């Protein structure tokens, strides 16, 4: 190990990851105008979706969510889009994999999986923090049927926070899986596009899962994608509560562990195959 490596290695492990977080934050803060534009876009998006559902609610029939629950779901979804969207990739990481800069990444005195996982999570948190506050603020101030409501109870809020954190980790683990697959196919744009659309659908980004036909809903709820945004957003508004909520939280933990394990195994396989050419 080089002198520098020893120095970095001797730092507290948490400190290394905190440094990673800080860099991502500073990076993100450089693009404030883009963030503002994003906030506007997401706000319009959420509002239009709510108007669309208003038309459906006027049709009537039995609703799996109250209108107020749906409104809250949509606003949270737009506010935390950066946390949960499945079509967002780190160009630097993909270029590192396909371009060969991976050699430098491997030379760092950190575990590759942990390092990239932290990086993915940090970037998403930084983006979301910058964007969620204005959206939530406006959503809380809107006139009645469109106003976002407070969490149904303190317990629901706690569950929301916990499952948001878990959901973010599931997203990061899924992202890592896609990066690991990129090693094997070297383009993986097919994998990425697939993840970007089918997974979006199954995660409840297009239509909330309770509105799915029975069979599709079952399929979606058993898939890892339901552990992303579907769960926290429904916990907040009380659409999921009690034993059902606990069951799905358990599912979330299960998927997190399974996806991290799978990602680590794939990454280890990759390292065994990897040949770094000099130069």
């Amino acid at each position: 190990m080089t002198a520098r490596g020893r120095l970095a290695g001797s730092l507290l492990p948490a400190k290394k990851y905190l440094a990673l977080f800080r860099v991502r934050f500073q990076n993100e803060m450089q693009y404030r105008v883009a963030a503002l534009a994003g906030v506007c876009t997401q706000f319009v998006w959420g509002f239009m979706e709510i108007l669309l559902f208003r038309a459906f609610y006027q049709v009537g029939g039995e609703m799996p969510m109250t209108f107020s629950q749906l409104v809250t779901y949509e606003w949270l979804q737009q506010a935390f889009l950066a946390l949960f969207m499945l079509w967002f990739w780190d160009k630097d990481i993909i270029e590192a994999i396909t371009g060969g800069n991976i050699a430098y990444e491997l030379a760092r005195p950190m575990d590759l999986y942990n390092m990239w996982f932290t990086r993915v999570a940090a970037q998403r948190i930084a983006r979301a923090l910058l964007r969620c506050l204005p959206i939530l603020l406006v959503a809380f101030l809107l006139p009645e049927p469109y106003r976002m409501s407070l969490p149904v109870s303190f317990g629901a809020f706690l569950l929301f926070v916990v499952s948001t954190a878990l959901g973010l980790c599931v997203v990061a683990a899924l992202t890592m899986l896609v990066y690991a697959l990129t090693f094997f196919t070297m383009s993986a744009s097919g994998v990425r596009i697939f993840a970007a659309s089918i997974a979006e659908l199954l995660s409840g980004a297009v239509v909330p899962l309770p509105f799915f036909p029975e069979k599709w809903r079952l399929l979606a709820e058993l898939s890892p994608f339901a552990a992303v945004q579907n769960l926290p957003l429904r916990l907040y508004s009380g659409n999921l509560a009690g034993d059902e909520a606990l069951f799905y939280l358990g599912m979330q933990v299960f998927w997190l562990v399974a996806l991290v394990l799978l990602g680590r195994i794939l990454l280890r396989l990759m390292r065994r195959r990897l040949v770094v050419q000099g130069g």
Partner: protein
Amino acid sequence: MKLYFRYFSIHLKSLMQYKASFLLLTVGQFITSFSAFLGIYFLMSRFHTVNGFALHEVLLFFAVTLMAFSLAECFARGFDVFPSMLGNGEFDRILLRPIHPVFQVIASKMEFSRVGRLLQAVLTFALAIGGGEVQWRWDKILLLVLMIFSGAVFFAALFVVGASFSFFSTEGLEVMNIFTDGGREFGRYPLSVYGKEMLRFYTFIVPMALFQYYPMLYILGRSENPWLCAAPLGILVFLLPVSLVWKLGVRHYRSTGS
């Protein structure tokens, strides 16, 4: 026109050098719009109707919008990636050539992978037309073609607006996505579902309803008013302010010098 076909064949030839990646992108485009289709299908099979429109009717609105958008992306993509042309000095070269710059920007890039989306639109049309109860007469078919064509012109015009803004600032251009990508997303349903105010907005400010909504009322037999068939031509009026903005932008242009 002859020159355009020349550009067209060059783009096609260069694309055929990368058949596999073209195929993948095309399939990807197809899948992407497929999840939007499923979203409509899920909601419509639960509610059966929205704003008085049935599934097959909603699918017609979806298909017209999707087809217009993908045609615009296919052929006017040059304006979509315009900021990079300003950045790398490509636009300087364009201004020097003795051909109209708008033509050159259009011809400089063609995105054939949008065929994937186009295919989705065609299949949706087949589904909607096969299952619906519309009496298809030649005038309605002609009107449908006119709707798609004017819709493509509409989206292309939006790309031009975005490109014109990039003469003034490179920051915050993402806001244009509200109208371009937003138009594609919100146009999945008849624009009237978003309420009277939104319909008014999409009639007079960003006139998407002129090709997506009003003429469709005639096709679906909701109205016998033949004037609705002329609505797509209103897009031509929209082109006036758009070309004004573009000219303003070009006049404001200062080369980066690199």
